[in-house]
């Protein structure tokens, strides 16, 4: 599902779970395994997708639905809370890794996938990249830390637009907004990331880590508020009803409004 490689101080994680890297317990287990095996001498992590559709469509909604169906309603809050805590531990750890982390984005980068991308220090978008928070369609808010992390980088006007409209934005808009810092043509994202990684590897490790720690902090208080709101909303019947519609839908375009 995730192909991990390591060479010359650069970890690469290639997300390769069809159809488009849905984040569920299997992917979390692999990310947790990676985080326990980071080489202390490493300087860069590159996160990218080998799936044609894009970087990641977000949480595994089918797994979430099945999990809620298998759990008595009075325990939904605890179950969702445990899952969110596990995700936050992984996302926060990636966010604060003492490495330069580069996300390479093409195609769909929606919901939890967008939130995973936002843990990276630097985002390189291919022209096909589209970013979106569709969570309101499910009766919830982004729960993997996306809004607090996005607020570190871009203005509230765009965040409100993304959150409250559920629309997607393309690479050019993301570049103009400061969400991504480089845009390249199709198929060139990984090469651009490797070039950046090679540059990062030339720097003194202590100074590089200090620079990251100086410029990037975890928005801990807002992450805790987001978690609480997500767990509260996830216990309402609206989520289960929306998940049921999604899982049972035969629409070829379930990710469009």
């Amino acid at each position, binding site marked *: 599902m995730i192909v991990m490689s390591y060479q010359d101080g650069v970890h690469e994680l290639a997300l390769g779970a069809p159809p488009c890297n849905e984040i569920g317990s299997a992917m979390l287990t692999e990310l947790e395994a990676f985080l326990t095996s980071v080489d202390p001498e490493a300087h860069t992590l590159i996160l990218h997708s080998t799936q*044609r559709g894009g970087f990641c469509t977000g949480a595994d909604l089918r797994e979430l639905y099945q999990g809620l169906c298998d759990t008595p309603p009075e325990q939904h809050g605890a179950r969702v809370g445990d899952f969110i805590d596990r995700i936050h531990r992984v996302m926060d750890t990636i966010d604060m890794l003492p490495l330069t982390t580069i996300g390479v984005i093409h195609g*769909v980068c929606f919901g939890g996938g967008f939130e995973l991308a936002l843990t990276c220090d630097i985002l390189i978008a291919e022209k096909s*990249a*589209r970013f*979106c928070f569709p969570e309101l369609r499910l009766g919830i808010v982004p729960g993997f830390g996306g809004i607090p992390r996005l607020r570190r980088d871009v203005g509230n006007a765009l965040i409100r637009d993304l959150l409250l409209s*559920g*629309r997607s*934005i*393309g690479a050019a808009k993301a570049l103009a907004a400061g969400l991504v810092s480089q845009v390249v043509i199709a198929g060139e994202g990984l090469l651009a990331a490797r070039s950046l990684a090679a540059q990062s590897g030339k720097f003194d490790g202590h100074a590089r880590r200090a620079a990251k720690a100086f410029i990037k902090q975890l928005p801990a208080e807002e992450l805790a508020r987001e978690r609480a709101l997500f767990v509260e909303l996830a216990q309402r019947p609206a989520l289960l009803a929306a998940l049921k519609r999604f899982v049972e839908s035969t629409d070829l*375009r379930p990710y469009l409004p």
Partner: protein
Amino acid sequence: MADTVQTLINMAAKRFKADAAQLRPEDDMFERLGIGSFQAVELISDIEGEFDIELPDYELQGVKTFAALAQKIDKRR
């Protein structure tokens, strides 16, 4: 409008390897091109690049034909 819809048809035909000469403005583009979510997202990105506009996804609600989509595009140019 005529220019927009023809440009749209040519662009979609190229993207999804269809014969532009066989596509009509009143065709159901999703049905004719056989595209799902991911391909629709690609099409939106192509449209934004080609026409230098922003096209919010929700503008596509209820839009099925090339002609209807061309109208949406023209309103944002």
